């Protein structure tokens, strides 16, 4: 159990990264409500294991715990998705219903759908880089992959995202 001064340290060092945790969780699980549940659980886990935190980058430490919780959640709730490796194309884009196609003319919606269509491990690295602004070193620490793999994963993820965006653009023009 943590003493009050430890709780204070936790509130100063770890809690300020709550938004970072929610953002990563939302993109890993592709759903905001699930993400908030997992973040809540991960934050309490981090609090219980705060004694193991050796100082240094608190954001990377928290995100590491969070992404592990997210993958456990995926394994339990969507086992196929969690198994997808970086390159596999097994993850299918959900078939677009007419309503969402109409909304897809919106740029933000289009990017969201394209990003969600990426395999989860590529999506993770891309979100950490483009949205969270992490360095390769931080990404390697959080995602538990070698530095060299970060750049090649990013390269494939961005290429794939471009492809998804081009595909989405075609779908819209076909509809119109």
């Amino acid at each position, binding site marked *: 159990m943590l003493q009050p001064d430890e709780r204070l340290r936790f509130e100063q060092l770890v809690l300020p990264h709550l938004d970072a945790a929610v953002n990563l969780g939302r993109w890993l699980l592709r759903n905001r409500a699930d993400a908030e549940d997992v973040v809540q659980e991960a934050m309490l886990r981090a609090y219980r294991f705060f004694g193991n935190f050796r100082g240094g980058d608190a954001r990377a430490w928290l995100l590491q715990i969070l992404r592990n919780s997210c993958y456990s959640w995926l394994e339990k709730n969507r086992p196929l998705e969690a198994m997808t490796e970086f390159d596999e194309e097994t993850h299918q884009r959900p078939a677009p219903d007419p309503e969402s196609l109409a909304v897809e003319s919106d740029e933000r919606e289009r990017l969201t759908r394209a990003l969600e269509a990426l395999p989860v491990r590529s999506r993770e690295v891309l979100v950490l880089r*483009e949205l969270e602004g992490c360095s390769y070193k931080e990404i390697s620490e959080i995602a538990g992959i070698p530095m060299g793999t970060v750049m090649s994963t990013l390269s494939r993820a961005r290429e794939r995202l471009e492809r998804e965006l081009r595909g989405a653009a075609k779908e819209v023009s076909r509809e119109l």
Partner: protein
Amino acid sequence: MSCELSRTTVHGYIDGELDAVRAAEFERHAEGCAECRVSLEQLESLHRRIERSQLYETASMGLRQQLRRDLRGQEPDPSTRRWYVMPVLAAAIITGVFWLAVSLVGTHTHAAQIAAELVDAHIRSLQPGHLTDVESTDQHTVKPWFDGKLDFIPPVGDYSGEGFPLVGGRLDAADGRTVAALVYGRRKHLISLFAWPEKAVSTGFSSSGSSRGYQWLMWHSDDMRFCLVSDISASELEQLRELIHP
């Protein structure tokens, strides 16, 4: 595509992950390689598209409140403390610790609120034409510019030698007052240093965190409050703080 660099190295370059030698090598190569130039353009435009779409999602108020309650609930069970031995003393100690905790948390919560305002100010400054009111890499041009515009003089240093060149300065607003903002560069990234006078909050006050993907680092020194905001890593912000206040 046949150029290998246009698929690999270009990412390290655009992300600011190549060291100076390799970055220069790549720039020389890209001058003569159309594929790499196309790649660079595509990556930059993709990055801008993502940035403009504001995909970053933040925690809901409900989750914030729930966590605060949860963390309190995890405190040691008061019945295990032997407070009944000396109830008055124990109560006094508990009250003392409580108020200390409340005031410290208060200081840091307040810091986080100001930091959120400053992150907004930093993001606004990234809009075209809003970055600087005075654009100069010369500290002797930037410093006098603030004269007469503020009731204090912010310290203006140039740290190009250490990889943080001065870009310029501007006026900004935070915590209900006008503050000085200095702009520094770091590779392709920009850093805002906000400064305003404030009597000491607590000695050695320092607080940091992230908001909407930006890192911030706040501290107090010489009756002034300082805050760095940028999308570079926390350790690099620490490095710049060390240069400003060794």
